[in-house]
């Protein structure tokens, strides 16, 4: 039996400069933030990031880690616009941006997870998504309708990171909140070897259904290479039902974007040490 337990730093150590990584969750909800923080601590750079974006994008952009960004939106949910992402776009610091309809992003991940070159969709047709992404192609239905559709290309990933509520040491994992988001597709779209699940709590396999029905068990161990126990790993994004979004902290994060001095004070206070230091600094704040 393979024990896949590892740390955030172990997971990030598998990355090389220029790789394409997928980050699960949605906006400011159940993001694998402890892994994002490990990326911030690491020397890895020039990443291509595929995500339904939230503060994962903001933090990685603020640290200059992002060469290419593939997204449908970037938002903090309760704060509509992500200030660090905005600053990065407005200063032109992201070399390549691929903005897609939310459904196209799902389709790209799904195609990759099914090992298909593309999946057809109407979403995107007629919009500036087609103009801004000239590499997108259309395909004509071979049937009587003859309709022209977007051939959404597979979004294959070199690595995927998701945060779930419970997992066992072999990579079976459950979501206990209202929405899986697209976490299974991120894992499916990634090459074997770098598919990582962090979880609020690791439990014995026999306890995986103690807190939810079998419907919650959507990630199985064939989809996962490494498992990280990370209590508070989604902080400050929400991880229902374990904890809601830390709105006060999120506001502190967003406000700190307003000037470089405040941002360097924020990073000094929260992001200069280990994950343990981060969780301690969060606990210690007034």
């Amino acid at each position: 039996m393979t024990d896949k337990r590892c740390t955030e730093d172990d997971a990030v150590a598998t990355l090389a400069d220029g790789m394409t990584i997928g980050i699960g969750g949605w906006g400011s909800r159940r993001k694998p933030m402890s892994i994002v923080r490990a990326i911030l601590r690491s020397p890895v750079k020039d990443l291509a990031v595929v995500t339904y974006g939230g503060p994962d994008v903001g933090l990685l952009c603020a640290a200059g880690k992002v060469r290419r960004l593939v997204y449908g939106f970037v938002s903090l949910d309760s704060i509509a616009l992500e200030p660090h992402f905005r600053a990065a776009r407005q200063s032109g610091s992201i070399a390549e941006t691929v903005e897609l309809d939310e459904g196209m992003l799902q389709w790209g991940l799904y195609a990759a997870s099914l090992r298909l070159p593309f999946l057809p969709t109407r979403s995107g047709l007629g919009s500036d998504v087609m103009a801004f992404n000239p590499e997108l192609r259309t395909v004509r239905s071979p049937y009587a309708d003859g309709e022209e559709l977007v051939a959404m290309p597979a979004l294959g990933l070199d690595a995927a990171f998701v945060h779930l509520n419970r997992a066992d040491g072999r990579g079976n994992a459950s979501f206990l909140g209202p929405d899986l988001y697209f976490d299974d597709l991120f894992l499916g779209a990634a090459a074997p070897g770098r598919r990582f699940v962090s979880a609020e709590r690791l439990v014995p396999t026999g306890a995986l259904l103690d807190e939810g029905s079998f419907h919650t068990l959507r990630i199985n161990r064939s989809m996962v290479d490494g498992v990280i126990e990370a209590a508070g790993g989604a902080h400050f994004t929400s991880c229902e039902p374990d904890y809601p979004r830390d709105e006060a902290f999120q506001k502190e994060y967003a406000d700190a974007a307003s000037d470089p001095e405040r941002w360097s004070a924020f990073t000094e206070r929260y992001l200069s040490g280990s994950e343990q230091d981060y969780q301690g600094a969060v606990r210690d704040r007034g």
Partner: protein
Amino acid sequence: MTVAELADICAVAIAEAFRGDGEIFASGMGTLPMLGARLARATFEPDLLVSDGEAFYVAGDLPIGGTDKTIEGWIPFRSVFDTLWSGRRHVVMGASQIDAEGNQNISNIGPWARPTAQLLGVRGAPGNTANHVTSYWVPSHTTRVFVPRVDVVSGLGYVRAAAAGAWIDAHHEIRRVVTNKAVLDFEGPGHRCRLRSVHPGVTVDEVVAATGFDLVVAGDVPTTRDPTDEEAAAIDRLDPKGLRLREVKA
């Protein structure tokens, strides 16, 4: 008109956008769109499905921000996408820019390569507008929002939809744009943006001046109707804290 009266008129005007929709997902982005959907369901369009804004369809009158809900279905984001591609949905979205053809922008202001103001990204707007009825809620009707040409086409207007093929052309509809001054639709010649009604106390000239393109104004423009007693009672029930007042500019 007080802000409270204006907010109620906007809520009813948004609810009116769902009239006749039947048993589909009435989806609202933001407080007033959500209130409008729930108001329509609570009064004249009882078969609508409305969500809690997170992942559940809720039965009964769930107040805005309320947590004591009767769940009647599960609608995680994946099911939202399935539902919208199936066409069983009408969404009321926000819009940072709208033009006379009904193109909508929530992505960014200025050039794409290096925007002067990055906004949300296109989100689901391209797919929404290609697949089902879409309406918009604009809390502040100004020439900054109603522009001759949107900087980014996130949601398709009529010309873009027609160019995107016969299927999309047949399924695309921008039903209403409800603002703090007026209700607009696209029933002008060639689906150009038309002034459908002005809110009480607002003149046609004011709306025309606050619109950065030539608005179609045909004949006598009616006044947006007031809530009925039943609707006023439902609004109080659905938004007892008055959260709608924070979202509308007097």
